[in-house]
């Protein structure tokens, strides 16, 4: 495929006086797993929401597969929000029908198989699922679409390390190789092994965009250590500087 799958030009978004994104330029190709990495409040979720058309930027534009967010882009983007949005009276089965209704590219059989492999009964109600299981179900649904772009906002934040491994494995074994997966997270060490590229974002600006191999080769550090070094904040010393 030629061209870029995601292209952000001069994206700016403010909430009141707060600049969440500040002139972001970013291009991402096809067939990649890309991590958007940044501390809390750095603009990760805002960027993802603009990409899938949930938010409008104040300035700049984003093109997904050459088009502005709209009906077409929604049909090729599979989005995992940072919080759960399913009605809790629904059963897992209901959720699957819901997805099958909404998305032509939803592979119900695949979703069913993944759920049963995890021992999740399709008759179970969302209400009765644990937080971790809910997140797994949500990810299974999102990854069971044959999308071109998967936008996963904090997919591993709320689950234990074993479930994290399961989730990461689900991501690597279920995206097709010409699709791109964008994962936002601050839990870098857990995901860096599955990333092609890392985008560092801080205060709404892109600080770095490189392949993970390049980062390791040029710095001799893992992406996680580099992140910790670049974003280290000096703890407040209780104003000791002023003490004579």
């Amino acid at each position, binding site marked *: 495929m030629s061209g870029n799958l995601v292209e952000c030009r001069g994206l700016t978004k403010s909430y009141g006086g707060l600049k969440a994104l500040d002139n972001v330029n970013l291009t991402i190709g096809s*067939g*990649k*797993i890309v991590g958007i990495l940044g501390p809390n409040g750095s603009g990760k979720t805002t960027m993802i929401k603009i990409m899938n058309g949930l938010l409008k930027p104040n300035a700049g534009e984003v093109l997904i597969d050459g088009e502005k967010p709209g009906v077409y882009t929604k049909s090729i983007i599979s989005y995992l929000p940072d919080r759960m949005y399913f009605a809790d009276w629904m059963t897992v089965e209901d959720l699957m029908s819901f997805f099958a209704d909404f998305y032509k590219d939803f592979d119900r059989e695949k979703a069913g198989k993944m759920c049963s492999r995890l021992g999740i009964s399709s008759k179970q109600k969302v209400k009765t699922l644990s937080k971790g299981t809910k997140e797994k179900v949500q990810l299974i649904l999102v990854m069971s679409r044959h999308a071109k772009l998967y936008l996963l906002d904090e997919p591993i934040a709320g689950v234990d390390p074993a479930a994290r*491994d399961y989730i*990461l*494995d689900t991501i*690597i*074994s279920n995206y097709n*190789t010409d699709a791109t997966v964008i994962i936002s997270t601050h839990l870098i060490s857990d995901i860096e*092994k*599955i*990333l*092609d590229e890392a985008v560092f974002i801080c205060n709404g600006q892109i600080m770095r965009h490189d392949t*993970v*191999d390049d980062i*390791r*080769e040029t710095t*001799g*550090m*893992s992406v*996680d*250590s580099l992140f910790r070094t670049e974003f280290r904040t000096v703890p407040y010393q209780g104003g000791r500087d002023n003490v004579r």
Partner: protein
Amino acid sequence: MEWRLTDDRPIWIQLTEQLTERIVSGTYPMGEKLKSVRDLASEAGVNPNTMQRALSQLDAKGLTETGRSTGRCVTGNGEILARVRTELARGKIRDFLKGMEVLGFSEHEIMELLKGENME
């Protein structure tokens, strides 16, 4: 066999090394078909593109071959395997000798020690 990945070096290099070890040691036997890129990636918990890059290195060294219908197999060429295996062993010996030199051992002392060390 576990995949051991450390933080300080590119992952593809580490994967290449460990795949090579598995091949020359016979863990992946001569002529045998390898698992798919995706399965290997999932086993090691890495990105499929990274695993692909490591496997291309093996192809380049002649340790693996990709047939049109067979997928990627370990080479059936024993000479290549023997050569790479010896190269790796030489590397380990050089590291060992360097370490012994740091400790101030002479060649003679090293040989004596090695003889005394029973290979159980």
